[in-house]
């Protein structure tokens, strides 16, 4: 081996070395977006993904997180809990700093155990109460759980409507059952009788008997806790059978998609809404415009959850001061951020030690095919 080659080797080794060191600090932060992009949850998952990707784009355009870009890899769970579990594992194997998703509670409840075992923070779009009740320190919500959302309606049933008897129509899956169980409990506490308790299948198309039963149940008001499309079909059947009771629900009863599908049948429906691009606040409306400009359709609450998830990661990591999973979760627990310092969260928001979130919310009513805010519920 002559001298020349030795020098050459040394030079190339040095070049390798120098090219390695700075790139280490600028390495992108890997994120695994494990979302329902196909199967029954495709609509919710796609919206969540699009909201998150919009936020990631904004974050990267404005200098990233602590100077590092976000590199988001998408994983499609096909709305299958076991696949979602395997994919969270895969995302972690591939070096994800944090996980975004899943939206469906039945998936989150399974895959959150994997992230917990690996010590990887996970920001979910799920709302089932039991997710933050497992004592898992790595899970954070991007919208509050049903156990917080549904009780906000109790006062509406009791004081505003003066209901003595109510009926409840709910979808018989993880999501619907979570809301249903909380609602029944709340009604018991408020001394309101549940006159009809009617579950239906996810994807159900025929609500004739459900509506007929509610109509005859003697209830003063109806709590409707279904997914968007089923809500639209329910509203149309209720309109057809000219049901006299007021229909009250959560965000899934009055969303833009529901109004589009149900047409005039949606008028008069009332809902407690945590996240809506129609909220009378500048932050929400700016987000709504940005989303529409990017994807050519209106944002729903799942899109907002995705958007908030991405920004939670940014603000939490920046508050922690470095890209460190343990520091991130310790910072997030008990963190409160205002909309001024963290505009990406859209509203003043706090997280407790279980990863549950609290923020203000709205009571909305559909009037002439438009959602109108009729009241505000303070953070609880």
């Amino acid at each position, binding site marked *: 081996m002559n001298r020349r080659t030795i020098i050459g080797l040394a030079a190339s080794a040095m070049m390798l070395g120098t090219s390695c060191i700075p790139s280490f600090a600028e390495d992108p932060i890997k994120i695994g977006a494990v979302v329902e992009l*196909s199967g*029954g949850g*495709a*609509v919710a998952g*796609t919206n969540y993904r699009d909201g998150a990707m919009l936020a990631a784009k904004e974050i990267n355009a404005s200098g990233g997180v602590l100077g590092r870009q976000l590199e988001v890899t998408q994983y499609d769970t096909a709305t299958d809990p076991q696949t979602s579990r395997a994919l969270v594992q895969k995302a972690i194997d591939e070096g994800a700093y944090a996980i975004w998703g899943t939206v469906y509670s039945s998936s989150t409840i399974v895959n959150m155990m994997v992230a917990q075992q690996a010590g990887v923070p996970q920001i979910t779009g799920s709302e089932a109460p039991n997710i933050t009740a497992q004592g898992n320190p790595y899970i954070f919500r991007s919208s509050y759980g049903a156990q917080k959302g549904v009780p906000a309606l109790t006062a509406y049933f009791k004081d505003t409507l003066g209901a003595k008897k109510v009926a409840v129509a709910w979808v*018989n899956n993880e999501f619907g059952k979570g809301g249903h169980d909380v609602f029944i409990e709340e009604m018991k506490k408020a001394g309101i009788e549940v006159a009809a308790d*009617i*579950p*239906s*299948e996810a*994807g159900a*198309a*025929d609500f*004739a*008997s*459900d509506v*007929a*039963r509610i*109509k*005859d149940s003697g209830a003063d008001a109806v709590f409707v806790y279904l997914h968007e*499309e089923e809500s*639209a*079909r329910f509203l*149309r059947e209720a309109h*057809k*059978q*000219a049901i006299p009771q007021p229909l009250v629900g959560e965000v899934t009863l009055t969303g833009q*998609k529901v109004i*589009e*599908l149900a*047409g005039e049948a949606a008028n008069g429906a009332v809902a407690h809404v945590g996240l809506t691009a129609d909220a009378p606040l500048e932050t929400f409306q700016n987000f709504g415009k940005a989303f529409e400009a990017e994807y050519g359709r209106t944002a729903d609450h799942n899109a907002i959850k995705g958007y908030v998830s991405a920004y939670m990661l940014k603000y939490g990591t920046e508050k922690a001061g470095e890209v460190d999973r343990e520091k991130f979760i310790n910072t997030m627990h008990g963190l409160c951020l205002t909309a001024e310092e963290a505009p990406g969260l859209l509203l003043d928001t706090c997280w407790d030690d279980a990863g549950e979130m609290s923020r203000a919310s709205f009571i909305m009513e559909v009037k002439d095919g438009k959602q109108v805010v009729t009241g505000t519920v303070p953070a609880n």
Partner: protein
Amino acid sequence: MEQFLQVLLSGLATGSIYALAAIGFTLVWQAAQTVNFAQGEFVMVPAFFVLVAMNMGMPFWLAMIIAMLVSVFLLGYLFKRAIVEPMQRQGHGNSLSLIIVTMALAILLKESVKEFYGAEAQPYPALMSSETWNIGGAIISVTDVLHLVISLGVVLLLTLFLDRTRTGRAMQATAQNPGVAEILGVDTNRMILYTFLINAALASLASFLITPVYLAKFSNGEYLGLIAFIAAIVGGFNQIRGALAGGLLIGVLDNMVATYLTAEYRAAIPLLLLIVVILFKPEGLLGTSEGRSV
């Protein structure tokens, strides 16, 4: 009483659409021994052809005609020529392989609609106004009545066609005994093709009727396919009126059970009915024991 009437009428209206899907299923089954697991998707897809045609600027009526023609070509002609025929030529037309192919076809149709049109439910224009009538306290819409009238009309026309025309009788002969029909000079292959075309047309019709109620969605076929299948077996798979009766019976029973017995287990009733019928009257409620077994 009002409630009973309401549930009965609603059940008949939905049941009549199940019947349309079940009739086509029965025809193909008889003629080609093909259990079509994609039948539900055959009902889901035509509505999207209508939406595509309307997005291209066509009026609703023209879009429906185009969608019907496209469906008959793709889901009738092409299905028969490109899939069923080659498999039957290899001696596997009656086998499991064909069943698997129809299952894969169901996934292909569903996923294609989702990828190329959209995963979200789409509003779909109704054939009739949303006007409603009040019959003894029960509220029934013009659309509901239309569904019933169309289903009954189709059964009547089909029965007349099969019994009174030369082609119809040749089709029946093919279904009952293809060997003998062939000897008698019937072009059995052509007759089988006709049943596939009729099936696609019936599925399109069911699609145009049900989609305004169900909303246009890629996953609509999953439930409809299963119900069409159960209705066909329960009613009697070798009789058109059997499929009609099966569809109506399931529509009514489903709604009655959900109203008066149990909402949790409403989906179990058609399944239990299916099991009971198979165990005690395998030829179906209105079926005759003659003719070929499955």
